[in-house]
């Protein structure tokens, strides 16, 4: 996932995650990626929300994903191996939290035995498949398997597993503690047997005794001493097992991400939709000139996943623009376009392919959405209050270089007021180096902007053919004082009604 660190699926999601999810309908995307697997769903969710900012990091992941696309079978095998290891523990019956060191030792021994087998499988996959992988990520991974899991290492692990059955008895060292009670019990490794050890009476000098059969207290004491002795070793072993489990969990999560990408790609490809690896450009935190956003055939992947037909793709060329103002016909594809931009940006920064024929964009420091909402169910606040509160929250989280997607923001009040609020927000945020895509039907807002000929602003308009038919395509165009609501009215109520109202 990263050239230099691990993928953290425990990390907290960003504060705006719920808004993003609902505004961009991310669950549809994530469900497609998960293909019914809860774990994959979570992995994809974390990946989508912990976007990369360096184009080089994005490229690293794109290469790995390209490898995965080329060798899907190997990826699935590796994933299964990791999964087998992660679930190994559950096969050992009666794994309980508080246990005596003996029990911990015994159970961990069994778990490690499974891990060693899994390591063998991993090594076999690596030996067979390594040559066909090109990306830095996979090359490094397979090289690591080859060097770290070499034959000597397998021998070392086997030696431990066999010795920890204590065929020669538990050798425990101790010192004298308070009141000369034994203290500092440590399990020791039996020294290699020298020739003299094998001759009776010549072994190391010492004194022996045997606990009589009936002496239960005595036997209990021996078991207690053994427990104290193996305590440290049992701990080391159990912790090692935890570490190995961590390793496999990490492997599973990382592979899980690529697996989920394969799942999504399979579905889009099956529908004949185009996908492409995007071309990320450097983060821009101020000024419009360096900002990049251009696409061919950009469509909303979530929309595609939820309808049978293929959605209309849009071309957009907004390089050098900091503000995109979208106006035009109701139900003309404005919201869909807005979502497709947000999704593509998120997917690009997760290192994924995007739903377009081509896509180039500056990476963003974070994506925020401010979409018109249904009436607040709790009815605590008025609609405008609610909108303003949300914007206030966003403002406290947003930073230069972020991307803000606004959908009919501040339309909850009359057009003049809403426009004025929006204007001030837009001005403040753009001056702070934040890029904004603003969908609005408010002519009062969009019109004056157009009149000013601000070069950093791109105006798109939902296309409406002269007959009132919508193409769901956005084209550059000046804002118009009407959003063709009348067209829509006509469509819904039919021509008959027109006479009645007209």
């Amino acid at each position, binding site marked *: 996932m990263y050239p230099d660190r691990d993928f953290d699926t425990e990390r907290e999601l960003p504060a705006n995650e719920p808004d993003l999810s609902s505004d961009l309908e991310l669950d549809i995307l994530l469900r497609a990626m998960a293909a019914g697997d809860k774990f994959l769903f979570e992995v994809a969710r974390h990946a989508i929300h912990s976007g990369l900012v360096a184009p080089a990091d994005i490229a690293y992941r794109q290469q790995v994903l390209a490898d995965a696309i080329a060798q899907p079978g190997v990826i699935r095998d590796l994933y299964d191996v990791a999964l087998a290891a992660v679930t190994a523990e559950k096969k050992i019956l009666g794994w309980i939290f508080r*246990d*005596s*060191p003996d029990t*911990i030792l015994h159970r961990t021994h069994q778990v490690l035995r499974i891990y060693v087998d899994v390591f063998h499988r991993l090594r076999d996959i690596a030996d067979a498949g390594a040559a066909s992988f090109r990306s830095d990520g996979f090359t490094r991974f397979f090289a690591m398997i080859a060097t*770290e899991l070499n034959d000597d290492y397998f021998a*070392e692990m086997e030696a*431990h597993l066999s010795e920890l059955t*204590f065929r*020669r*008895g*538990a050798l*425990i*060292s*101790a*010192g*004298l*503690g*308070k*009141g*000369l*009670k*034994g203290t500092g019990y*440590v*399990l*020791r*490794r039996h*020294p290699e047997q020298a020739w003299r050890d094998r001759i009776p009476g010549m072994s*190391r000098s*010492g*004194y*022996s*005794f*045997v*606990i*009589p059969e009936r002496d239960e*207290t*005595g*036997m209990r*004491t*021996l078991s*207690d*001493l*053994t*427990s*104290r*002795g193996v*305590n*440290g070793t*049992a*701990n*080391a*072993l*159990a*912790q*090692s097992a*935890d*570490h*190995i489990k*961590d*390793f496999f969990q990490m492997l599973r999560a990382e592979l899980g991400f690529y697996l989920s990408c394969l799942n999504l790609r399979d579905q889009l490809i099956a529908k004949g939709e185009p996908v492409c690896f995007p071309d990320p450009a450097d983060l821009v935190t101020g000024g419009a000139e360096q900002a990049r956003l251009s696409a061919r055939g950009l469509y909303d992947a979530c929309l595609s996943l939820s309808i049978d037909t293929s959605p209309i793709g849009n071309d957009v060329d907004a390089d050098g623009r900091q503000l995109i103002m979208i106006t035009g016909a109701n139900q003309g594809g404005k919201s869909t376009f807005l979502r497709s931009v947000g999704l593509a940006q998120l997917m690009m920064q997760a290192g994924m392919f995007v739903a377009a024929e081509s896509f180039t964009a500056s990476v963003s420091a974070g994506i925020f959405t401010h979409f018109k909402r249904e009436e607040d169910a709790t009815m605590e606040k008025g609609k405008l209050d609610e909108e303003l509160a949300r914007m206030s929250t966003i403002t406290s989280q947003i930073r230069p270089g972020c991307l803000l997607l606004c959908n009919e923001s501040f339309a909850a009040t009359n057009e003049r007021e809403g426009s004025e609020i929006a204007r001030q927000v837009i001005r403040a945020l753009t001056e702070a180096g934040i890029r904004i895509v603003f969908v609005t039907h408010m002519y009062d807002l969009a019109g004056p902007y157009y009149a000013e000929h601000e070069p950093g602003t791109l105006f798109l308009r939902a296309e409406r053919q002269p007959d009132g038919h919508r193409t769901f395509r956005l084209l550059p165009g000046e804002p118009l004082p009407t959003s063709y609501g009348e067209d829509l009215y006509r469509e819904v109520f039919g021509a008959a009604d027109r006479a009645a109202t007209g």
Partner: protein
Amino acid sequence: MTTTTVPFRSILFDRPSDAVERADPAVFTDLNLDQVFAAVTAGRDEYDLMPFFGAPLHDVQAVQYRHQILRDMEDEALSGALAEFAGHMREMRKYLEQSAKLRYRYQKESWFLDAARIYGQSVRALADALIAINPSSRGFIAFREYLAAYAGSPTFTGLAADIERVTDALAAVRYCITIRGSRVKVTRYEGEEDYGEQVQRTFAKFAQRAVKDYRARFRNLPDMNHVEARILDLVARLYPDVFSALDEFCARHASYLDETIRVFDREVQFYAAYLAFIAPMKKAGLKFCYPDVSAESKQISVHDCFDLALAAKLGSKAAAMVRNEFYLTGGERIFVVTGPNQGGKTTFARTFGQLHYLASLGYPVPAREAALFLPDRVFTHFEREEDLATLRGKFADELVRIRDVLDQASERSVVVMNESFASTTLQDAARVGERVLDRMTRLGLVGVYVTFVDELASISDACVSMVATVVPDNPAERTFKLVRKPADGLAYAAAIAGKYGLTYRQLKDRLNQVTP
């Protein structure tokens, strides 16, 4: 060091002759000193301090000896060092008890060795601390010299060297046990490698983050069972020199504890306990002082005094307590206290007695400033429950007790009489009171006489009238403040009437309104 020091004997008594016990439990109960002493000694039962409270001092020099020591101990460095020493000695005694309780020889010997080690360390630490702190009281200077000499003596240095040698030898013992089924083999440890470390090394490459600690914790009881003892015996056979050195140590140093130090450890608690007891009260703002004591002058004078037992009971609320002052000049000898019930008369009488008794113990007293008479004895006479065993009436019983007091009291005594003769008629009480006061006056002793008979307050020049007062605004609330003024039994009645609008003037006004 100083050259003028006298040999150290006791941190409590300047001269051995000062230590005379005279238990007088009735006085403790009457003055509520039993409560005070119980609180002072709480948690210090092992020192058996009660006998010291029963041995008041009669010599000004002996009192000053204690004052000096207590002033030294107000230095936190010294009290801290003493507390640490006490803690160590206490621990040492626990070790000795444990040693006595255990069954197996080597275990007994080991606990004994540890006890001796704690002793050695605490003696050296205290000796060093006393040199660094440089106390100024005669008692501590003498003790410091004693301790320095003892710590440098061959007895002590030999003990310390033996402790170190045997302890180090035991600590160096390393052995191995091999457990295989029911078979146990005990050998010397010969550098075998730690298996846990090896396991860790093997799997270190996977370690990425801190994981759960799986180590079990074991209960460690001090005693051993027969298997552990068996193993220990075998270890002793593997290291015979070490264990015979332990045997020898215990034989040679069976009575290592120095008697003077043992006694000091107990006696110094007499001070530490009281200082610890009054510390929270001082922190709450109550003032204590070292009284100016005299065995001759009866010109006593006390400012801002309070009942110590009451203060201890009130805890954090004690700061709001009413404080009193009193003095005697010229031929004045006896305070005759009158006033409303619950007005603080008894509290005053108790405080008076407490001040004198505590002063004779050499303690700081609960007052801001105090000049007190050092009595030969403090006597009390408080109202008692009827004693059926005496088969006398209450009045008669009281008279008998008063006679006993007056028979024993001398001109150097302090007598506190509280509310006597309430069980007889006013006239009887007045007459008998007159007689008793007359005898007290003639003896020339110093005392308090609490009574409801106003006339007694002005019976002679030797008597000083003290009156319990009430708050002017709210007469129902007593202030517990006693003032030096003639007895006026009507003052309280007038006040309480005022509260209910029943004074003359009030009634007049009210009546005027009703009938114009």
